[in-house]
């Protein structure tokens, strides 16, 4: 593997999940020790055994898996491990003042004594970025910095990176989002299966070539064709509202239809999905599935009725990490029976679904903790295929998975819909929603403000609907 960063340049590192980008960045930041090879900076060999070594060498990393501690305050997190860097121990007031200054440079309006665990995931990412750039470093590594950010936060980040470039810093930028790389970076290094593929100047290549390099084969089209026709309504909410939802919601999902929910961050997407899945008690309205009223039944019975939830945090809510693929896939089916119902023999079906979804694993007894993000997501999808769900509620189905797995997931979602089922999906990536869905809803402040066909929708038109109207006052703070 080879990688060279130049001062004042932004160097992108791309590759599918499991290509080794994050591991490479962890080596540069001293978290993982290299087996062999050298790291040279300013003509000097670096020996990085500990994250502190990297820090002293002037390398600062913005980690993908947050290095923030949720029980500490923003200020404590920002200066953790380098409380004495300014020559003397900081007083509480000094700490707060320096934190506020650092935060305001990134247009963040967060009180320094706020507990990091009480912030939204986007704000946490911004704090992580603030912490990274606070360091007195000459090399900055950004590992998937935008995965959790809303678009205006991305703008702030990009301005920051441009400024670092102007100051002559070296930047390594790891991302799945090629559009960002093409606006931001000067060079691109492509990795595949832990190996160096090639390094090209951004000006001399295009997105298709880069994707080809990552996947190792040409990609004709990322998305499947949309549904030719939509059948009768499967899921219908009329003024439905859960306890945690700000407003009642009307929506329908038809047979064969994929409906997307777009919006800025934390506009009530999760509350909506969880309420439909039955994890939140009904406050008002009605919910029907295939004409049957399911307004008041609990989550376990909604599974039996044919609703499946693919939650955003696979690791916490979606999977039993210590169990194997078969147990994970069969868990929804098993949940249908009583406590002492016989567990049906599902081995055959499980293997069949694994083949259909192209789950990359030796066998059905592989623990899901050993799988990559994309394959884990396939296991969650497989669970609902096996349980015979009719309507899938998918939260961020491709978060943190690579392009190859994304394509596989799009294909499976479309195939699922074509078999007479429906899907409601949320995503932060507007291009994904436009490409994947048949119809798009825009959610703002808990209410659905727009309902348009996905065909012909543009990121621009969706964003315009998603942004609060100009005189809404303080609304932007929540975004």
């Amino acid at each position, binding site marked *: 593997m080879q990688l060279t960063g130049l001062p004042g340049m932004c160097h992108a590192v791309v590759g599918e999940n499991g290509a080794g980008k994050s591991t490479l960045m962890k080596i540069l930041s001293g*978290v993982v020790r290299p087996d062999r090879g050298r790291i040279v900076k300013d003509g000097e060999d670096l020996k990085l055994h*500990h*994250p*502190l070594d990297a*820090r002293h060498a002037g390398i600062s990393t913005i*980690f993908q898996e*947050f*290095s*923030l*501690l*949720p*029980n*500490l*305050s*923003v200020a*404590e997190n920002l200066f*953790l*491990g*380098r*409380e*004495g860097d300014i020559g003397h*121990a900081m007083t509480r007031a000094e700490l707060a003042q320096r934190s506020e200054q650092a935060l305001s440079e990134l247009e963040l*309006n*967060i*009180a320094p*004594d*706020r*507990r*990091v*665990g*009480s912030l939204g995931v986007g704000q946490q990412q911004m704090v992580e970025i603030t912490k990274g750039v606070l360091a007195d470093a000459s090399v900055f590594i950004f590992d998937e910095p935008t995965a959790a950010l809303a678009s205006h936060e991305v703008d702030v980040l990009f301005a920051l990176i441009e400024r670092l470039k102007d100051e002559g810093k070296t930047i390594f930028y790891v991302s799945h989002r090629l559009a960002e790389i093409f606006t931001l970076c000067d060079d691109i290094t492509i990795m595949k299966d832990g190996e160096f593929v090639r390094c090209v100047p951004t000006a001399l290549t295009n997105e298709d070539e880069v994707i080809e390099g990552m996947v190792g084969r040409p990609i004709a089209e990322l998305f499947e064709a949309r549904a030719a026709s939509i059948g009768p309504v499967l899921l219908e909410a009329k003024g439905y509202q859960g306890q945690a939802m700000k407003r009642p919601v009307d929506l329908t999902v038809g047979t064969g239809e994929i409906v997307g929910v777009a919006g800025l961050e934390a506009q009530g997407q999760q509350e909506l999905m969880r309420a439909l899945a039955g994890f939140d008690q009904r406050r008002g309205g009605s919910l029907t599935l295939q004409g049957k009223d399911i307004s008041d039944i609990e989550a376990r019975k909604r599974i039996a009725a044919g609703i499946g939830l693919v939650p955003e945090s696979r690791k916490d809510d979606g999977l039993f990490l210590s169990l194997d693929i078969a147990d994970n896939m069969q868990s929804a089916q098993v949940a249908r029976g009583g406590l002492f119902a016989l567990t049906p023999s599902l081995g055959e079906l499980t293997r069949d679904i694994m083949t259909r979804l192209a789950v990359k694993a030796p066998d059905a007894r592989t623990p899901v903790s050993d799988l990559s993000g994309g394959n884990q997501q396939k296991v969650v999808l497989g669970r609902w295929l096996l349980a015979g769900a009719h309507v899938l509620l998918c939260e961020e189905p491709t978060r943190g998975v690579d392009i190859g797995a994304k394509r596989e997931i799009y294909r499976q979602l479309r195939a699922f819909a074509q078999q007479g089922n429906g899907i409601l999906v949320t995503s932060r990536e507007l291009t994904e929603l436009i490409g994947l869905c048949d119809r798009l809803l825009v959610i703002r402040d808990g209410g659905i403000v727009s309902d348009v066909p996905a065909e012909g929708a543009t990121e621009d038109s969706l964003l315009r609907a998603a942004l609060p109207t100009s005189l809404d006052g*303080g609304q*932007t*703070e929540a975004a």
Partner: protein
Amino acid sequence: MIGKESHRSIAQRLQQDAFWFRQRGALLSFMILGLMLLFLSLFLGERFVSTTNIANLAGQLAPLFLVSLGQTFVLLGAGFDLSVGAVISLTTAILTLDFPDVFKLPLAIAAAVTVGLVNGVGCVYLRVHPIIMTLATSSIVQGVALILLPTPGGIAPQVLVTAASGTLFGLPAGFYWIIAAAALSIWVVHGTKYGVRLYATGENPQSAWINGINAPSIRISTYVISAMCAAIAGAYLTGRLASGDPNVGIALGLDSILGAALGGTLLSGGVGGPIGTIAGVLIIGLLNNGLNLANISPYYQFVFKGAMLIAAVSLFRRKEAGL
């Protein structure tokens, strides 16, 4: 953009401010403590609110204060120390050996530090579960204590007798031990960068390490602190009893965890602190004292303590904490 986030309710601050969030349990414990004080002074009147009783209470509670504060460090670092009771026993055994006084005190401290280091290294580097590790050292240490001092007896160094049972400005010595231990531990946890690093390590040692914190050393240090606190408690008890007792520490081992847990320190680390532990220990002390003064069988204390531990652990949970 809105201006400052200054207009927040108390409930919001408790959830959102890192400091207050970590001390939520302590707040609740102090409320319960307040209710207990009110109840006891109303029903027991003069018998409770008397200088003799309060002096007694301070004298009795000092050892539990010391070990609970030490235990709080271990719990904050997401560890567990069951060996403190045995260390107390060992300390009293060493301090009543037939030896010159000048050697006994350093020897006792050195023994405690060794136990702490063994606990810490076993838990951190050998990856033995803290409960198993400290249970094992507890057995060894208690065994050594019994070998050195098979039956209660021996003579305590005179300096400890004075330091533990004398009075100063009309207040019993135990009171000063409590104040010193509480002030010192509050300062270390809330006033030094060691404190912040301890909270970070207890929450997630891996993240702490990524931030350049030597998480293994921090975790080992908590066991050493705990063992030293136990040794100081042992020294105090030796002085107070004016002789040694190889079984004196046994009850204090579990009570130290109870005291910290009642004060809102999570057994999973990273939340809580010495301020809450002060309230937790006082709750245990007032319970005993109240039963005693009301002429109720002291054995009820065990029933109540167990129930309180369950209540505390289910009340202060990680889920509630949103972590």
